[in-house]
């Protein structure tokens, strides 16, 4: 039994992983990520890639919404920016894979800076609505800037090549997407051990107080927007390599809601929450599909019910978690940890 975690030095207090079980779980998770491609079927590998991409995008949004308190309903639009950048560079310039992804992230971050500008004037709901507006305007650009985006018919992306290996199968793609996800999630976790991350949290908790404490609000708010958009851009770039065609409908407004739902369900303002939420929300439709398949002998036209049922469950998850478990899955995990730490006593 562990009673509390007594820390004697500042580095120990700031460490990413503080307890032994945490380290063990982390090693198990990494081992699982490494073994996955050998154990999973092609379809499940596709789902794994998709989940990891969503993890990246959701973690980015979590930095902005969960840690800085700037609600954004435009994350999907930044994913689209990244995807289009990658598509354009891959098709017309033929630049290498890593450069394309980095450029996707950078351009998304630059646009994120501009979209974040209203955060100077408005916050809360108004900012959320401003980001809705921005994402609709970006959608208009995707449809009409045909020279770059090829309009409604969409831009096709040739398969990525990485050191001469063509990344055409999900198994190979997994090996580039997984390290990206691990790297970017670790990066986000580390961000909150730094001055910048602490400034974000101060702004979230009370922006006026933060300003009084000498935190330049605009700079940090914009930085938060840029970081979130960078994550979205990278996620979108990877997405483009997985699906190999980008259209204006690839990243609908619903995707933004999906990502926000992912961090609500997972737990806002925790790195673990972004991961859990994104994986959970990616896999829920699959679970529903399995249930519908099992029910199909008994229910007529079960297949046609799948899409509406998914929509309802999606909404119900958002509402249910907000009402009954506002801290999300991360809180459930924390409760479990507390249970084992305190056992045999009750909390």
């Amino acid at each position, binding site marked *: 039994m562990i009673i509390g975690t007594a820390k004697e030095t500042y580095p120990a207090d700031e460490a990413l992983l503080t307890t032994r079980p945490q380290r063990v779980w982390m090693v198990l998770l990494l081992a699982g990520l490494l073994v996955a491609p050998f154990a999973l079927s092609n379809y499940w590998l596709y789902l794994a890639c998709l989940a990891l991409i969503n993890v990246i995008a959701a973690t980015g949004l979590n930095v902005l919404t969960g840690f800085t308190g700037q609600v954004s309903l435009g994350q999907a639009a930044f994913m689209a920016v990244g995807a289009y950048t990658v598509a354009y560079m891959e098709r017309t310039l033929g630049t290498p894979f890593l450069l394309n992804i980095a450029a996707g992230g950078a351009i998304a971050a630059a646009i994120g800076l501009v979209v974040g500008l209203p955060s100077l004037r408005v916050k809360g709901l108004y900012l959320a609505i401003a980001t*809705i507006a921005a994402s*609709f*305007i970006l959608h*208009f650009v995707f449809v009409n800037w045909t020279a770059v985006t090829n309009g409604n018919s969409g831009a096709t992306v040739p398969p990525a090549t990485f050191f001469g290996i063509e990344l055409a199968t999900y198994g190979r793609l997994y090996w580039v997407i997984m390290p990206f996800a691990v790297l970017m999630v670790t990066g986000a976790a580390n961000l909150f051990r730094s001055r910048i991350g602490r400034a974000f949290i101060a702004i979230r908790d009370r922006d006026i107080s933060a300003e009084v404490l000498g935190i330049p609000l605009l700079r940090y708010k914009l930085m938060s927007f840029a970081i979130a958009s960078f994550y979205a851009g990278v996620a979108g770039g990877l997405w483009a390599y997985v699906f190999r065609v980008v259209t204006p409908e690839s990243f609908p407004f619903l995707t933004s809601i999906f990502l926000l739902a992912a961090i609500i369900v997972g737990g806002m303002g925790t790195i673990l929450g972004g991961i859990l939420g994104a994986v959970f929300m990616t896999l829920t439709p699959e679970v529903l599909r399995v249930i519908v398949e099992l029910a199909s002998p008994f229910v007529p036209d079960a297949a046609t019910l799948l899409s*509406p049922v998914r929509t309802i469950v999606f*909404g*119900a998850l958002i*509402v249910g978690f*907000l009402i009954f478990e506002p801290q999300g899955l991360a809180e459930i995990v924390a409760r479990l940890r507390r249970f084992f730490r305190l056992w045999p006593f009750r909390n």
Partner: protein
Amino acid sequence: MSEWLFFLEVTLAGLGSGALLSLTALAYVLIYKATRVVNLAVGEMLMLGAYFFFSVAAGWGLTAWIALPLAVIGGGLVGAVVERGMIRPMLGENPISIFMVTVGLGSILVGTVELFWGTDPRALPAFISTKPLFLGEAYVSRKIAVAFVVAAAVIGVFLMLFRFWRGGVALRATATDQAAAYSCGINVPGVFSAAWIIGGATAAGAGVLLGAIGGISPSMGVFGLSALVVVIVGGLDSVLGALIGGLALGMIQSWTSTYLGGEYTSVVTFGILILALMLRPYGLFGTHEIERL
């Protein structure tokens, strides 16, 4: 001359759809004014109202004059259920969480409609005659004219109610200061319920009118986003703002789609939204809230 006539016709059509925007915006304003909740599901509640009308009028074969009140009552019931089931438990939570609850609600409503009525667009049974209407020389679609008159009448009634009716005064009192309203004996939870019921009913009514003009489909809730622009520009807590903002945006959208092309409508609409947020974040007629540490 004919160019002017054409412009006049476009403007009148815009005013007609603008009246519907105003009516929808009114649902936002009512709910926001009383409960400080921006209900992003107004568009979906509007859609549900239109489907209620559809199933009563087309499914049961009843006349529009029975179906319309039933749809409006149905919308009110949905509002009541939502308020008691989802909004009341969230009282005191931060506004963003409640906003997200309504986003989830929108998704539930879309799914429910798809489950019961399918995803295909439908046409509402015609209950407004299609005989053309002429205002001077300008042609106006009769449906749009009817929508305009109904919306204008409803908004007029609301403006009067807020001014003179006890319930309206209670609502304004609750909006100004909940604690003070409580201590004056106003049933604040009752006002919350009433605002959601009336808001739901208004949205349902707007949905029937909108459906009569353009048909119904599970995606017609997007109309709610345009109405959201109206309330942001006009002020989230201003009925007058909803009225003027709706009419103005209706005309602007009509001009844009006629003279620039339909694809520009959303860009102009949301451009106006961003401009308004940058210039007057609390809207033209909204209350400017001052924040203190």
